[in-house]
C-alpha cells in the first residue's frame, strides 16, 4: 500500500484541520489500512511532531490545540474499529483554582498540556472551596491534584487544601502540583507541594517523571 494517504492525514492533522483529518481517516480505512496503523502512524506520530514543535517554540498554543482537536476527531472515527483500547491515561489529575480566585486561563493552559501528555484531567473550575477539593478527591481518586492561584491573597488557600488533605488522610497517595503568578519554588516547598514550575508548559513533564517514582 502506498503511504500517500497517511501523509495527507499527517498534513491535515498538523494544520489542525479536523474535517480533513476525519476524511483521510475514512479513506485510509477504505483503502484497507488497519485502524491501529492509522492511529499510530497517522495520528499519534503527527501529534508527537506537533508537540515537539511546540516545545521548541516553533508553533503557538492554538496550533497545538487545533491539532489536538483534529486528532480527537480522527480517533472518533477509529474508536469503534480498534481491536483494543490503545489509549489508557497515564494518570488522573484533578485540577482547580483556589477559593476566592477567579483567574483561570493559566490553569486552563496547564490542563491542555497535561491532557496532551496523556493524563486524564478533571477540571473543577475556579473559586473552588477546600471541601469541594476534598469531596472530589474522594470521588475521583486522582493520583495528582493541581492547585492554581493568581493572587497574593489566595495563594495561602493552597496550604489550607493540603492541610485539609492531611487531616482527612488523603495526602499520602497524592502528588500535589501548584502554580500561578505569585507562586515561587520556596513557597511551593514550604506548603508541602510536590511539583512546581513557573513555566506551565513544563509541569506535565515534571508530573510524568514524578509519577513514575510512585506506585499509587
Amino acid at each position, binding site marked *: 500500500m502506498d503511504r500517500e494517504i497517511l501523509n495527507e492525514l499527517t498534513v491535515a492533522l498538523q494544520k489542525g484541520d479536523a474535517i480533513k483529518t476525519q476524511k483521510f481517516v475514512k479513506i485510509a480505512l477504505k483503502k484497507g489500512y488497519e485502524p491501529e496503523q492509522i492511529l499510530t502512524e497517522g495520528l499519534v506520530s503527527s501529534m508527537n511532531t506537533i508537540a515537539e514543535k511546540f516545545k521548541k517554540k*516553533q508553533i503557538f*498554543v492554538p496550533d497545538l490545540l487545533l491539532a489536538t482537536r483534529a486528532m480527537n476527531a480522527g480517533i472518533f472515527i477509529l474508536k469503534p474499529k480498534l481491536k483494543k483500547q490503545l489509549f489508557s491515561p497515564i494518570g488522573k489529575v484533578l485540577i482547580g483554582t483556589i477559593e476566592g480566585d*477567579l483567574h483561570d486561563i493559566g490553569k486552563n*493552559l496547564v490542563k*491542555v498540556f497535561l491532557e496532551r501528555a496523556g493524563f486524564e484531567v478533571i477540571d473543577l473550575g475556579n473559586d473552588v472551596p477546600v471541601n469541594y477539593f476534598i469531596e472530589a478527591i474522594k470521588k475521583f481518586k486522582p493520583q495528582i491534584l493541581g492547585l492554581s492561584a493568581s*493572587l*497574593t491573597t489566595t*495563594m*495561602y488557600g493552597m496550604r489550607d487544601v493540603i492541610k485539609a488533605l492531611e487531616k482527612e488522610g488523603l495526602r499520602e497517595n497524592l502528588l500535589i502540583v501548584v502554580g500561578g503568578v505569585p507562586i515561587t519554588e520556596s*513557597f511551593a516547598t514550604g506548603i508541602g507541594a510536590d511539583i512546581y514550575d513557573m513555566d506551565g508548559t513544563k509541569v506535565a513533564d515534571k508530573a510524568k517523571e514524578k509519577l513514575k517514582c510512585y506506585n499509587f
Partner: protein
Amino acid sequence: MAKVTFNELAINNLNDFVYGHAPKKIKFDNGMVIGGGTVYPEVNFTLPPMQVNKNTISKAYKQYKEMTEGVCQRAMELQVPGLVIEIELVPDMTFNPEWGIETTKIVKEVMNEYQDKNGLKSLLRITPVDVREGNDLEHMWRGKHWDLVMDTFKGCAENGADLLSIESVGGKNLHDDGVMFCDVAKTVFSLGIVAARDMEKLWENIVKIAEETNIIPAGDTACAFANTSMVLAVRGMIPTVFSAIDRVMCAVRTMIANEQGAIGPDKDCGYEGPYIKAITGTPISMEGKSAAVAHNSFCGNIAAAVADLWSNEAVENKRLLGGMTPEICTEMLVYDCRLMNQFTASGNNLLMRDMLVESDSRLDAHAYIMKPSVVLNIAKEIIKGKTHLERTKIAAKAAVQEIRKGFENGSLELNERELNYLNMIDSQLESIPDNEEEFIADMIENNTTEKFDPKKYDIA
C-alpha cells in the same frame, strides 16, 4: 446621564496627541488637573502574600495604612505636583464590601493628612473586583454578585474614593476561549456583543453612583481580555499580531464606559487607552516599563507616549534595599513623570513622545498599534461603525491593514509565523456574517456551555 455615541475624533492632529494633554481635562478641587499638561504618577499597591478573612482583616488594614504612609511620604519628599493612589480591592474586599469600604476610609485618611499637613495633593481611585463569575452566579445584572459589586462601589464612593474604576469581566470566559484558539469570530462575539452589553449595563450603574456621590466615574480596562492576549503573546504562546488586533477590538468595548458617562482617567492597565483618548478626548492612565513589577510587555516606552497618568500597575508590599516596594515604585514613577513634564516645560514634549514611540514600535505588533499615528488612522475607521459589533469588526480589519502596511513599509518587524497568522485572522474576519442576528444565533448555538450561558446576559 444620557448615552453618548462618539462619531468624531476628539483629537485629529498628531501634534495634539501627546502625553499630559487631553481635550477633556478634569479639574479637581485640590488644584490637580488631569490632562491639563502635567503627567502625574498613579501608584498602585497591594497586600503581600496573606489571606484576607475576619481573623486577618485588621492586619490587612494596617498594611494599607503603612503602605499609604510610605507612598505619601516618598511623594512629598520628591515634591510631586500631585499624586493618584489606586487601590484595586482584593476579591475578599468585594465579597465583603464593608472591608473594601473600611480600606478606602483608611487610605483616604492618610492622604488627607498629608494634604492638610504637608500640602501633598492627591486623589484616590478605588477599583472593586468584578466578582460576577463562578458557578453560583445567578445573572450578570442582578442577584448576589451584582449587589456585592454595586454595594462596594457605593460604599467606597461615599467614604473617600475620588475616582471609580473596574476591570470588568463580562464575556471574559468566551474571550479566553477565543484567545486560546486565536478564534476571531468568537473573540468578536465576546467583545462586540456580550462584553458590550455588559459594559452598557454596568457603567450605567457606576456612573449613577458617581453622580449621586459627586465623584468621578473614571473608566474601565480590557485587563481581563487584551491583557490576557498580550501576556500570552509576550510568553510566545500566541502570536503578537493576535494580541495587537485583540487590543484594538477591546478599545470599542472599553469606550462603552465613556459612552455611558465615564470621563476618565481610564484604568492604567487598559493599553487600549490611546484609542479612548483619541476618540473621546478623555484623559487616560497608562502603565509600561515601570509596571514590570507586575507583568512583562513589549511596549514599555510607547505606553507613555500619550499618557496623562503614569502607573506601576500593582506591586505587592515587600522590603527591598531601597525600602518598601510601594515607595520604590512611587520614586520610579515620579522620576518618569518629572522627565516627561520637563520635556513639556522646555517645549520638547513631541520629541520625547516620538522617542518613546520609536524605541518600541518597530519591534512588536502590539507596540505598533499603540503608535499615535496608527491609533489615529484606526480610530477614524472605528467611529464609522454604527453598532458595537460593527465597530469591533472595523477595529480588527483596520488593525490588520495597519499592521500589514507597517510590515510592508519596514516600520514593523514580523516573522513568517506572525505573517501567517495575520493572513489567517484576515480571512477569519471575512467569514463573519454582516447580519448581526444571524451572527449572534450562530455563536449562541456553538458556544453555549457551562462557562457561557447567554441567558445570564439576556441574550437568547
